[in-house]
């Protein structure tokens, strides 16, 4: 009797999972709702890429995204840069939609959009303590803020 109950519970759990899991998972390909503007999107990527970094590191990540919009090698809009395939891991894996940015992250996004650029025009950043493509190390490094290095 107990085994039957256990099986029924397992079956119910599996059916529930099969129907609901995909709906609850962050959908990285989904477009943001219309009320999300570039500011919201930028704050979310700062959250995804710079959580745990110092405040200036958050501003710097936002500034890199803004700088890319002015570089011919990248798309010309904030949304275009952020959704560029595989440009940001937190966008690809949907991390940016799993929680809300903090006030500090919104402020970092504001400053970056306002032109505040502690990287002096960098278009790349990465964590030097994690494995990355060897190509990225060919870029001239301009500064290190927290756990990220920033490069042209």
């Amino acid at each position, binding site marked *: 009797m107990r085994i039957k109950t256990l099986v029924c519970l397992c079956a119910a759990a*599996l059916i529930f999972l099969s129907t609901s899991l*995909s709906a609850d998972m962050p959908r990285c390909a989904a477009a943001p709702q219309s009320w999300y503007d570039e500011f919201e999107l930028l704050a979310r990527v700062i959250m995804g890429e710079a959580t745990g970094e110092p*405040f200036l590191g958050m501003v710097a990540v936002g500034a890199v995204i803004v700088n890319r919009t002015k570089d011919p090698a990248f*798309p*010309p809009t904030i949304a275009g840069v952020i959704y560029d395939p595989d440009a940001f891991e937190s966008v690809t894996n949907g991390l940016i939609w799993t929680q809300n940015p903090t006030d500090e992250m919104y402020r970092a996004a504001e400053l970056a959009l*306002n032109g505040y650029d502690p990287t*002096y025009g960098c278009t790349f950043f990465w964590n030097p303590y994690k494995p990355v493509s060897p190509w990225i190390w060919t870029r001239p490094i*301009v*500064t290190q803020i927290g756990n990220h290095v920033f490069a042209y």
Partner: protein
Amino acid sequence: MWALAVACVLALAFGLTQYKEARSARTRMQAAQQRALFNLVTHVENLEASLAKARASSSVGQQVNFLTAGWLNCQAARSDLSLAGADGVDLSGPRRFVATVGDFALVLSQKLARGETVTPDEWAELARLEDGVKELSGVLAKTAQASVTGPRPARSALLEMAASFTRGSSRAADSLNHGFSEIDQITQSIPAPVYDGPFSEKNLEAQALAQPGPLISDERAKQIALSFLTPGESFQSVSVGTVEGAIPSYVVTAKRQDGSEVATTVAKQGGAVVMATDSAPRGAGAIGMEEARNKAMEFLKSKGFQSLEETGWRKRGANANRVVFAYVPHTEVSAEGGNLKVCLYPDTVKVEVSLDTGAIVSFDQMNYLITHGHPGRVLRAPIISAAEARSVLKPELQVETAEPRLCVIPILPTTEVMAWEFRVRSGNDTYLVYINAMTGKEQVVLQLIEDESGAMSV
């Protein structure tokens, strides 16, 4: 036993459902990627045709049309390139090439529209780029054809799943990778045109001048930083880093107990504060705009800025509890009848004031340090008078400016012109129209947007 069998069947059903969803998502993604690739082929073909027609046309109006169409196709192709990318292939080269071709076409069309002449060298440069576009177009067409592998043989979901575990990439993906690698090589081999546009190498590589004054130590930078935004405040820790680039600087980060920080960037040569920001959380707005304005001006005067003029402001923060003011300095040029005041728009300084206590929470003079006093800036008396400039405006515009303002405006990162600024109204909209003070031609038109959250031009 039965229970185990049921559990296995349910697990299998669950696995298949998930697999079908994943396959469907992958198919949709591939379809979007292919659509972008075919759009890219079309836009690059249209670009090639537009450039060729512009060169063949003898009418200036038609040349402007074709060059502008070329630029529009480049914009569309840049967007396509973002979506059509293949895994592991760097598309920055093709993107830069397409953006530069579009930029060059736009610069030529603007020259023609202003009544200037496109030189034979510029037409030759356009022909050279057109050859590159033609080569790109051919490879793209081949890549698009190869990416279409035709209808797939009908296979069961289980077989398909097994195949997806064993194969690294499909034939379509392989051909895409190969095609994009070839495109990358082609675009890297075409030299960029020499011209004066936003994406020209000259403007992308614009460098700042060294700031006057001796090199300072990191200890001196720390002193300068700690006495700048919050003088007298003691911090839990202070660290000093560096940043290279336009103005090599020290970055002094002072942390408080609550985790907030004041970060100040100090130029290594001369010790000027390039930018500074305070991340402390701020309370609700308690002071008015006028008081905030006075606080910002007091701060600027205390830092040695004597004659700055406010050019715009914008409220920031979740409760609009901060306001950013933009300021520009003046200079004078001697002209017939006395000196004329000139407003220097490229030399912007920004100050952010918190509306809870009036504290200064950010400061940025990067642009000022780069352009102010640049030896390349030679200001001459305007050839066109204010009255002559006014006569260029459309008669139906209602001019609000009693006396137009003479100013220097940035056209490109390394190019600026002197212009007369008129504030005009058309219906309910307000505009700033800039008439070139040397040529008398309309240079820039900006729309002024003013509401309770700020005044800015777009």
